[in-house]
């Protein structure tokens, strides 16, 4: 997993609740057997005027001028400001892959769907939950101010606005540690191999039918 460094990033506002994983990365792109290259198809159906299929040259496609990420002022955004229940729907990790590949490093929303939230941490994308009132305020400020940037400091668990106001966010200590150090979770778990084997032996003795 990639290490997460604190960042000062341009913010793009996506003002819709319940943004689902089919919207984040439509299914035709899930046919890829690779982990990378999903960025050009992030929000494909909203972002382009034509219908996207794998293998198309996205540079040749007509952009939807009304879609928020296509506005020049949000180009290069690293922080996505979103609404409640972001990432609901499928378990496809392609959704966080696409967001990361596009250039996002942080998603801020009042709430996230469970599987999406979990998937983000696995790849070094940071989902931040702030309360709905603060998210509302950030939306107003972003829309009012071109070039609006937030400073996200994972070490201190804070999001700081250009006026210097800071919001604290919660994060599981283990997840924070993993992100800051870019840890290989599988490697960490395998350090417990003896424990897993011991558990397995007990489990097999109690429920042998699970091991046939």
């Amino acid at each position, binding site marked *: 997993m990639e290490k997460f460094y604190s960042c000062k990033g341009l913010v793009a506002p996506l003002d*819709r609740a319940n943004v689902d994983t089919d919207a984040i990365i439509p299914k035709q792109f899930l046919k890829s057997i690779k*982990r990378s290259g999903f960025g050009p198809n992030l929000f494909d159906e909203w972002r382009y005027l034509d219908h996207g299929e794998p293998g198309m040259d996205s540079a040749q496609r007509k952009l939807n001028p009304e879609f928020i990420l296509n506005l020049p002022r949000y180009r290069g955004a690293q922080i996505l400001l979103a609404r409640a229940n972001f990432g609901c729907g499928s*378990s496809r990790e392609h959704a966080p892959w696409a967001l990361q590949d596009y250039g996002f490093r942080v998603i801020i929303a009042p709430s996230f769907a469970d*599987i999406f939230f979990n998937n983000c941490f696995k790849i070094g994308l940071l989902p931040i939950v702030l309360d709905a009132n603060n998210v509302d305020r950030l939306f107003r400020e972003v829309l009012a101010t071109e070039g609006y940037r937030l400073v996200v400091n994972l070490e201190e668990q804070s999001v700081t606005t250009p006026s210097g106001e800071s919001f604290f966010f919660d994060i599981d200590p283990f997840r924070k540690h993993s992100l800051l150090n870019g840890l290989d979770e599988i490697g960490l778990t395998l350090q417990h191999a003896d424990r897993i084997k011991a558990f397995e032996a007990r489990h097999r003795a109690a*429920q042998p039918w*699970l091991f046939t």
Partner: protein
Amino acid sequence: MQTLYDKLWQSHVVHQESDKPDGMALVYIDRHLVHEVTSPQAFEGLKLAGRAPWRRDSILAVADHNVPTTGRSHGISDPVSRLQVETLDQNCEELDITEFKMNDLRQGIVHVIGPEQGATLPGMTVVCGDSHTSTHGAFACLAFGIGTSEVEHVLATQCLLIKKAKSMQVVVEGELGHGITAKDIALAIIGKIGTAGGTGYAIEFAGGTIRALSMEGRMTLCNMAIEAGARAGMIAVDNITIEYIKGRPFAPRGDQWENAVAYWRTLKSDPDAIFDRVVILDAAQIKPQVTWGTSPEMVTTVDGKVPDPSQITDVVKRHDMEHALEYMGLVPNMPITDICPDKIFIGSCTNSRIEDLRAAADVLKGKHIAANIKLALVVPGSGLVKHQAEQEGLDKIFREAGFEWREPGCSMCLAMNDDRLSSGERCASTSNRNFEGRQGPGGRTHLVSPAMAAAAAVAGHFVDVREIY
């Protein structure tokens, strides 16, 4: 004083680092179901790291999302889909993993074949790189969807590092009305608590109405737990559970069967167990449900109307509703029964089991689809479901009614193969998601039960199934 979820959780914790009850725990996984879409990158990661699967016999693989539902003998024509399915075949061959290949009679949707084979057993932890893994909770399993990094983690370690969820009990009591199914219960629950209502929770469905459901109905209900935001849904073991499992290929036999059953009978919440949240529904109040919007919570009853955004005070909600109505091509206050679908889809891991096909066939017997229906599809959940339905003559009823009888797979639930809606087309679908573009770009999905889908096919518009049969 434990909930079913507590019991399942506790019996699988390998290790817990901190003493805090909300900390991460290393949890052992009994059954790992694998399909072609979310696994290639996990297998690749495993190989790149020079690792091997921890326990091959815990894995069951099948291709379902990409497979065509016609002309299978010619293989898969889309080269990108073909490569993905071939990649699964290769990975399974190389690593000696059990896989039901595309032309195997046992092939089907991953959440249909697990229970059908007895590969899903009570008391198990079951994972799959697919959010509808919650389906398997119908067997008193702790079953939930995972992302590809976690698929790799389970392959390599047989464990996952997860946090315990909060517990919610959804109690449904009373007798269901004629023509009302588990799908209607599921949609009614989502309509009540919202698509994020179950976020952070594991839901246990309980009450007399649930106990009266068949395993098929229970699977439909648990399948939709994820649409209520809950990663896992579950139901306690009873005789219905045990009867269903008996004699299935992967189920225990002989002495082991007796021991297993004795253990399985303990898999229920203690009477005095305390849940973090309890939601109660009266079965008698549940009517046939139809979604009108682009989220499963945008649902009403068949005798209802399309809602009016101007009546909504919450700005974000109003905005979402306007957006959804525009996408769906509907106007406020329009009766649901005035909505005319172009296509009918009976299938998906929610409603493609034998009982679902029987319910739809019951409505269709001796009738024909209306002239405005461009295409009506039945896609059985597995080759075995298809076979069983043919034994019962259901295929004939469907064909005579004007339906196409297809090969098993996910099909138009997510339209990764050729079965899809064109832009602007409207579908009465027995699947689980009505998101924008889910069944094809610009496609409009209305989620309903199999009987309601069949009734809409005959009438040419949504109709209260209770009135027609």
